[in-house]
């Protein structure tokens, strides 16, 4: 069965010059490719979230470098490049009483991908796969 729960890496970072470069440097050293990326900032600190091709390895590497890292399961949804694309997804989740904790998007090779952390991952996958919405499998990145 396809696994739609994608491993996302989250890193706690102080909001100061050079910290992000150190994350990127660690990824470069480990020859890890970053596929999607976002920064959420909250004053003096922020959380960097990214999808990479080798999440377990990336996590280990960052941990060794002293970063505060966690692995979180998120959803990747292929967006239809047409009016109502976002509405469709948001409505499915809203109707199922699934909350979106946060979201960001990236432009994949075959169209935009919407990445979401939701309050109920299992339920979200179940409801989304019932419809004609394409979810990204975690193997896609490896």
């Amino acid at each position: 069965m396809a696994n739609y729960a994608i491993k996302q890496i989250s890193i706690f970072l102080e909001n100061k010059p050079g910290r992000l470069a150190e994350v990127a440097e660690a990824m470069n050293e480990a020859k890890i490719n970053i596929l999607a990326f976002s920064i959420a900032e909250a004053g003096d600190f922020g959380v960097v979230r990214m999808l990479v091709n080798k999440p377990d390895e990336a996590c280990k590497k960052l941990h060794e470098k002293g970063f505060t890292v966690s692995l979180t399961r998120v959803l990747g949804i292929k967006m239809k490049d047409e009016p109502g694309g976002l509405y469709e997804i948001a409505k499915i989740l809203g109707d199922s009483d699934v909350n979106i904790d946060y979201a960001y998007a990236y432009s994949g090779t075959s169209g935009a991908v919407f990445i979401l952390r939701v309050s109920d991952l299992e339920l979200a996958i179940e409801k989304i796969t019932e419809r004609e919405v394409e979810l990204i499998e975690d193997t896609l990145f490896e």
Partner: protein
Amino acid sequence: MEYWNPRMERIPADELRDLQYKLLKTLVYKLYNFSPFYRRRLKESGVLPDDIHSLKDVSKLPFTQKTDLRDNYPDKIFCVSQSDVARYHVSSGTTGKPTVVGYTEHDLNLWTESLARSLTACGLGRGDTMQVSYGYGLFTGGLGLHYGAERIGASVLPMSTGNTERQVELMRDMKVTAISCTPSYLLHIAETGEKMGINIKDDTDLKTGILGAEPWSERMRDRIEEELGIDAYDIYGTSELSGPMFTECQEKNGAHVWGDQMLIEIIDPASGEVLENEEDGELVVTTLQKEALPLLRYRTGDLTKIYDGVCACGRTHPRMARIKGRTDDMLIIRGINVFPSQVEHVLMSIDNVGNHFQIVVDRKEMLDNMLVMVEVNENAFSDKINDLMLLKDRVGSKLRNVLNISAEVELVEPGTLPRFEGKAKRVVDRRTL
């Protein structure tokens, strides 16, 4: 020259020493017979009431430490029963437990008498309006100055702290002539006044500042006097004794410590040996007349010296220099005592933060600002910003509950705060006085 209690304030020095000796001897008898704590302490040190033959013999007596108050929380060290206590004041202890000080009616009278003499020595009296901008409540500053100023016949405006714009407005409208607050808060009031278009020097009747509860310098006094067009006097006190008690006189050359109430000594903080006049050391105070919580040789932790010679004002009581610093790591933030150990105690009670922390103290717009940097606990790291914000708020509100002042909280990455071998230096104080 006005005196509140001319006979006592100008008592010849040898008569004062004689009075102090009699009061000390009475105190030691009383403590030995009525205080289980001091009876034990005196027995342990091998000094009995009959061993006190002169004032100098005070140096044979055992010290009392702040930890003694904490260990006897809340009132096990009191010498009177609850029915004789007229008021309590509570200040922060070094760790979780606060320090409780009780006052009988007689104790409150002594305190007010002390301030009546001191405020009179600053040239204040009937006809003055004093704005009391120290905190009212468990903190001693507000109520102490309030009753002192009332006693000398001044009109009192009990402002307490905060609502600075209102402080400025009422200062002008009520023709306030004197204010008591921390020196940094007075500068903040002046700055706020400027923003409102009210210049303290030109637009108000303020002439006198009774300033203390935090360390300040001659440089800061010059600045306040010049910018605000007032006379600024230093006031000293410590919550374990009776809050604010002693001020300088108009000579501005040391605070007059009323010797009929308090016997002061300066000791070498390391050896405990008594030092001579003009030598810097730790201030040690024996309360000569207090009833509820008399203290024998209480180590204040404040570094100062006793001046030689008699003051030109004619008052014969010992004069004490400005406080130069502390023997411990106690911080004074907006007039409130803060021990790094209290912060540590709070952080240890919260699961999702580490035990390493750093306190950065700064002055923003003349007001003290305390920043507590704490490491997030790696295992508890959630990638949801909201969880982190809640954690930050929780640390902030717990600190506020324990310290009685607000602190800014910054979450930092684990392992980034300095580690120490031996004594940790957890405080960075960037304030310039």
